């Protein structure tokens, strides 16, 4: 069966769009969620969050002093200064276990565990960083 040329082109476009969308859905196989970590009383609460690739962790600074969120081993992510009443969001895309601390107050530590961790030492992609704002 031979399709008229305009119809054939339309089917081709639809196929490309559908396949592309399918690939995206495969990568983001669950609805992305936002997890909140409060920075309060000089602590990260909860100190450990376990999330899935594509999820976001939002850090909210409710203390009176500035804080920071920096990956400990190689500074794979660094929030910069988070002023009081401001937030910072981290979109995690690849699996891995990422320990972090506040560079101003090194006693303050936490971890983000991004699901499907097979070999955390090889997980180097840190996902996308988003600019923070007031909360």
């Amino acid at each position: 069966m031979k399709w008229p040329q305009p119809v054939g082109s339309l089917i081709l476009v639809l196929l490309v769009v559908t396949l592309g969308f399918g690939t995206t859905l495969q990568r983001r196989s669950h609805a992305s969620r936002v997890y909140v970590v409060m920075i309060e009383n000089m602590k990260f609460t909860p100190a450990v969050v376990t999330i899935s690739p594509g999820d976001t962790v939002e850090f909210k600074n409710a203390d009176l002093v500035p804080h920071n969120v920096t990956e400990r081993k190689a500074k794979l992510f660094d929030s910069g200064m988070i002023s009081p009443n401001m937030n910072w969001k981290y979109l995690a895309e690849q699996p891995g276990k990422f320990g972090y601390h506040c560079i101003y107050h090194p006693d303050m530590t936490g971890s983000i565990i991004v699901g499907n961790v097979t070999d955390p030492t090889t997980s180097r992609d840190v996902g996308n960083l988003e600019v923070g704002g007031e909360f």
Partner: protein
Amino acid sequence: MKNIHCLAITAIAAVSFAFAHAQPNDAQIAAIVVAANQVDIDAGHLAAGKTSDSAVKKFADMMVTDHTSVNQSAVALVTRLKVTPEANDTSKSLEDGGEKNLAHLRTLSGVDFDRAYVDHEVAYHEQVIAALDNTLIPNAQNAELKALLVKVRPAFVQHLGHAKRLQAALK
């Protein structure tokens, strides 16, 4: 070295005496909070510019950043509450003690400076935490002012722990 330590302790003891005999109102508490933070900001600026020890500089920078931020919050709150800070014996004692500490630190250099600065930071934070617990928080009448004092306490406890670790490392 003993003289250095004695001078720091004498200045702190004068402030302790003022705290112990005070039952301040909210306007006086506001002045005490601002003075206490400013004293440590000034010492931090001096230390950050004078020390050659990277750990001491990092600590001093943090003192400037944190106490400046606390003062900004305190000033914003009392401005909103229309409370005018009222100088009192305790705030004046803090300011005098801070000036004496700065004058003393300026006479020192090298590791003697670092030790004297950090010794004073340990004594200062111990004193301020005790003042928060025994004088400032119990006497604060306005709920928002009391909440601010409660909220700032964990930062001062963290500073004290950091200063004690530095003190041990410098011995």
